[in-house]
């Protein structure tokens, strides 16, 4: 089983990237599980459509009196979709929410039941506390991929995330798999991201051009891979999925 986490600044396109990777991997016949670790609970929306309960919402409502199946929805290509959810906005601790949700998934036997070949953790924003580093811990993601553009704030967030991965070196946590450049067409974009990759001894795992196709698919509530399978952008996502799998050892533990 390959487990990978997608981090990056809020709004940079993590969920779009993760969902399209999940869709592209499922096309290859892989069993994929995507776990949204964001209180907004919209990580998997383009894979499954409609509403779905969050793990924290279920815990709040039923304590432990609910089933594994209540926590998941099966989306495009059979992708198993999970949303960790979060606390009441403005109150509570989102980091603790991620910890509780991931532990609950494990306790309910999600990994044994669905036996995914690939697990994607789509993690909110920056690694601001212990809860947001949970998907990096031993037993969860083996590789971290950081989505970034060349915008300064995005580069800054990516550096912080890479720093957290580096700080955890020696603990047997996830290692840095690479950066995913999601272009915003700013000046010297590739150069800046390449420099960041060099600073952390990693590489750009893939580049995604800005594309209206992505917006069009989003408007349909679908991934590009599902909505426009013949498009160039779908091809880019498929290519990125191949590259990510390669970096993760193609089915072997990373």
């Amino acid at each position, binding site marked *: 089983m390959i487990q990978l986490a997608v981090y990056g600044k809020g709004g940079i396109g993590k969920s779009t990237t993760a969902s399209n990777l999940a869709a592209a991997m499922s096309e290859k016949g892989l069993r994929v599980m995507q776990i949204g670790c964001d209180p907004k609970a919209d990580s998997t929306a383009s894979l499954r459509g409609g509403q779905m309960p969050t793990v924290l919402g279920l815990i709040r409502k039923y*304590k*432990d009196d609910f089933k594994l199946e209540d926590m998941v929805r099966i989306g495009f290509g059979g992708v198993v979709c999970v949303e960790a959810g979060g606390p009441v906005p403005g109150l509570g601790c989102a*980091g*603790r929410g991620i910890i509780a949700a991931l532990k609950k998934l494990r*306790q309910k036997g999600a990994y044994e039941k669905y036996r995914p070949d690939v697990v994607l953790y789509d993690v909110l924003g920056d690694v601001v*506390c*212990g*809860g947001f580093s949970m998907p990096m811990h*031993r037993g969860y993601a083996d590789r971290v991929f950081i989505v970034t553009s060349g915008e300064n704030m995005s580069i800054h967030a990516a550096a912080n995330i890479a720093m957290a991965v580096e700080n955890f070196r020696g603990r047997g946590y996830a290692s840095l798999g690479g950066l995913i450049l999601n272009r915003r067409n700013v000046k010297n974009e590739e150069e800046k991201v390449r420099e960041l990759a060099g600073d952390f001894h990693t590489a750009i795992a893939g580049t995604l051009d800005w594309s209206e196709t992505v917006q069009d698919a989003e408007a349909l509530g679908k991934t590009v891979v599902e909505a426009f399978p013949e498009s160039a952008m779908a091809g880019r996502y498929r290519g990125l999925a191949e590259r990510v799998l390669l970096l993760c050892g193609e089915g072997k533990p990373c």
Partner: protein
Amino acid sequence: MLKKLGRSGGRGGPEVRIRDARFPEPFASGLEYNAPARGPWNIVHTGMLIPGAHQIFACAQGCLRGVVLTAAEMNAMDRMSWISVSESDLFDGSMERNIIDGAADILDRIDPLPPAVLLFISCIHLFAGCDFEMILGELRGRFPRVDFADCYMNPTMRKSGLTPDQLMRRQLYSLLRPRKKDEKCVNLIGNDRPTDESSELLAMIREAGFGLRDITLCGTYEDYQKMAGSAVNLTCLPAAAAAGEELERRLGQKHLYLPLSYSRQEIAENYAKLARVLGVEAPDFSGAAARAEEALGAARRVVGDAPVAIDYTATPRPLGLARLLLEHGFAVRKVYADVFSGEERADFDWLKQNAPELAVSATVRPEMRFAARVAPGEKVLAIGQKAAYFCGTGRFVNIVAGGGMYGFDGIARLAGLMADAYLREKDTRTVIQYKGLGCESCL
């Protein structure tokens, strides 16, 4: 906002007739009161059962008070250390490092090193996502001759997942290392005190040629480790079952749960199960059952129609015990319990049908701080410290968690204790203030 405490019945109040009670939680939860009956064991008492083990608590100083006082009262301060946690640990990301360095510093000062350390983390570590495995891994690397167990003092999470009692009893055996199995040896696990030698349970085991190991009988750490070599783990208390399940999974020791019971049929079924595992014929227990009946009859003659109250700290089956006593003519008036175990369902239904006026009283509802004591002159017999405290009686059976009694012999012995308690009053205030019934006390 502060509210004046009412005295209404039902889920909103502290007492309800069993005919109106809900199962398994008869009372609404909320602000809790803790009666000054200190006999039931806490995590410190339980942890001290591992011979030679040292306990290290990492938590805020305010939370340390209870555990330190427990260790002090049981004259075991040399077996406990602590690392205090403060707000600044959260700011600088040093929480995990402080536990590692603190524990290492403590161990560097202990000569000789203890064979085992029970390292307790607290709620804040779990909130913050501390990596306990990493902490333990580093300590194991630095102190390879010490066994480290992960333990938890996390009262904010006591109602989600395993209870603190279940968790502690499970972790107590987590240090057992795999070793060659002795097919002729069984463990009795999860108890705080040895089971009575007179019980049919122990007689069956011994007569079948099996050795018996029990942490309460271990004199050395090696004795404790030998428990890993037993082929079977027996558990009798509901709080111990998780330990048995975990050892079956981890060490391949067969787990046999033989719940403490006051039902003749269930006791017989338990012994039949045990006989199958031991590979022997189930003995004829009609003599033991008859002796239990005789003892109950004798106790009834002594106690007469005096009201009887039972609390959940005395036995995990207070409803089962109430049923047994009612069936034998005792005037059981009240059961003190905040929640019932699932195993009590059949007895709950029986009592609803056959003793609908039986009162069920909470122990932790805040109104219990002001609970009315029994009218002066009424001779109440209580079974358990909390029942004694709430009933204001000196006539009480001083046991916790079943008191080591089991089977028909256990019923006979309990009946004997009831008669004795009724005839010889105790100084309740003095007796119930000792922490951890059966443990050493400096008081």
